[in-house]
């Protein structure tokens, strides 16, 4: 039996390492070939170059797309976080009838095929006669980002010590004052985390931008358009690498913030005692 157990203890770490390789290797090919001095991505590598990166700022269409992505990402992240704060606070702090059903609808985009969500919004936008612009893309992104925002924020709101708010109210703060001066500072790391996650999702999302963008192009849609031309692949790989790095940096900061939020709410009692 101990032999079996030793085997079990040994194959799992080995499997974990293989698993990480499987997850990361294909993704790491993008930066690798973006630095390769050859128009087609294949081994053996033919030499180091930065020319694909140097070409990026000389493409006006790409700069437009980047600017569009930035506008949509920031607006979607802010709106989704504001809605997420309301929902997360309602769900962690209060109990009311219909709570589960309401939560179910708000979280539904998380488990629905994205094409069906996109097509549903498209059909109503067309029915209302609204033009397809960055605004419609942003509205779609907010819908998709809110569930993620809520999950991040709830992990910050849970374990939040209510007596702090009660103390503030007892000392004469209005409920808005309490929120602004007690709740918000405590929640700041979770909120920043939610903003970063929202921005990352919006920056990376293709489906909503593809269906709801009309002639307004965000970065993923721009990349999609470039993929038809084999000769432009290295440039796309370079752009993809930059997006990849941006996502990973933003997510790492988001994760650190989320953890700080958890630590803050959990050590509250200790600080006051």
């Amino acid at each position, binding site marked *: 039996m101990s032999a079996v157990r030793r085997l079990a203890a040994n194959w799992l770490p080995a499997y974990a390492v293989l698993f990480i390789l499987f997850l990361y290797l294909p993704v790491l090919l993008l930066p690798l070939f973006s630095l390769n001095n050859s128009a087609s991505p*294949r081994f*053996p590598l033919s030499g180091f170059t930065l020319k694909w990166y140097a070409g990026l700022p000389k493409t006006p269409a790409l700069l437009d797309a980047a600017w569009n992505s930035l506008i949509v990402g920031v607006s979607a992240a802010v709106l989704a976080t504001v809605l997420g704060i*309301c929902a997360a606070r*309602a769900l962690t*702090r209060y109990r009311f009838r219909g709570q589960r059903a309401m939560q179910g609808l708000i979280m539904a985009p998380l488990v*629905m095929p*994205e094409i069906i969500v996109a097509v549903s919004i498209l059909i109503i936008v067309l029915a209302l006669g609204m033009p397809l612009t960055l605004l419609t893309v942003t509205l779609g992104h907010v819908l998709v980002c809110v569930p993620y925002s809520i999950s991040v924020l709830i992990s910050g709101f849970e374990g939040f010590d209510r007596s702090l708010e009660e103390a503030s109210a007892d000392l004469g703060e209005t409920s808005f004052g309490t929120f602004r001066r007690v709740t918000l500072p405590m929640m700041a790391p979770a909120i920043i985390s939610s903003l970063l996650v929202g921005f990352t999702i919006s920056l990376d999302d*293709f489906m909503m931008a593809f269906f709801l963008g009309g002639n307004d192009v965000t970065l993923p849609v721009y990349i999609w358009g470039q993929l038809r031309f084999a000769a432009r692949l290295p440039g796309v790989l370079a752009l993809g690498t930059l997006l990849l790095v941006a996502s990973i940096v933003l997510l790492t900061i988001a994760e650190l913030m989320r953890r700080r939020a958890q630590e803050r709410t959990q050590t509250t009692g200790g600080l006051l005692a």
Partner: protein
Amino acid sequence: MAAAAEGISATRAPGARSRSYLQSDEAKGYTLISAPFLYALAMLGLPVVVVIAHSFWTQTYLTVDRTLTLENYRQAIFEPIYQDLLFRSLWISFTVSVLTVALAYPIAYFISFHGGRHKNLWLFVITVPFWTSYLLRVMAWKVVLGYNGVLNSALMGTGLTSEPSTAFLYNSTAVMITLTHAWVAFAILPIFVSLEKVDRTLVEAATDLGDGPIRSFLRVTLPLSLPGVIAALLIVMIPTVGDYVTPKMVGGTDGVMIANAIQAQFGRAMNKPLGAALSVTTMIAVCLMAGGTVLALRAAVRAFR
């Protein structure tokens, strides 16, 4: 004075009552949740109703004829082309979700039972790829599997094959590999959460009572982590059935899925009602399949125990 005071208190009473309701937890909860709830209702609930309505209408050139009809559903369900696409999509999403859970379970188990102090770091490292652009990850697989791709050049470089193979790209296997890679990190989370809830003393008790590690796993740990397995299956199965990017990029003609047909109805074909009917049919079909899978899985685990 007294009468005046009474008058004031009399007029204040209903106001006070409604104010006390406004200050109740229920009212505060509704106030807070109303904004995100109404947003979801306007952007998802209402649009889904409109899609369902459209699925019973007919497209006549640029306008929509609102006479109720089942013609769209007849086409969506019985036309061989849509039938094929739907069954292929269901088969792909089923395979991918089972593969994903099978690959994710040992990792979730490893992190939960042997992760030690670094559980959070492990989880983070494993979920990061899920958050990076989906489009880029699919593109990476195209680079790996392509005719001039990494796999072919590696195989030729090591002398295993003499010329590049076209077998890797543009088929449903390529779609399955890519989708599994894309979703496996996401499936780890619910399994991990349910494994964290497994009471370790129960596993010890099973071992003390003479169960070997495999038997105690099958009879204690696995059944207790079943909710996580089911959640993981669902959050992979339902979204992947409607995947558009992967079949378009690595699927070729053999790997086309139902989402590509839905997109065509909203784009070139300009037949929104048929697109709506295809969407509704897909959603119902995948929910039925998901329900069936969950029931079968529960029965299987009960039989094991």
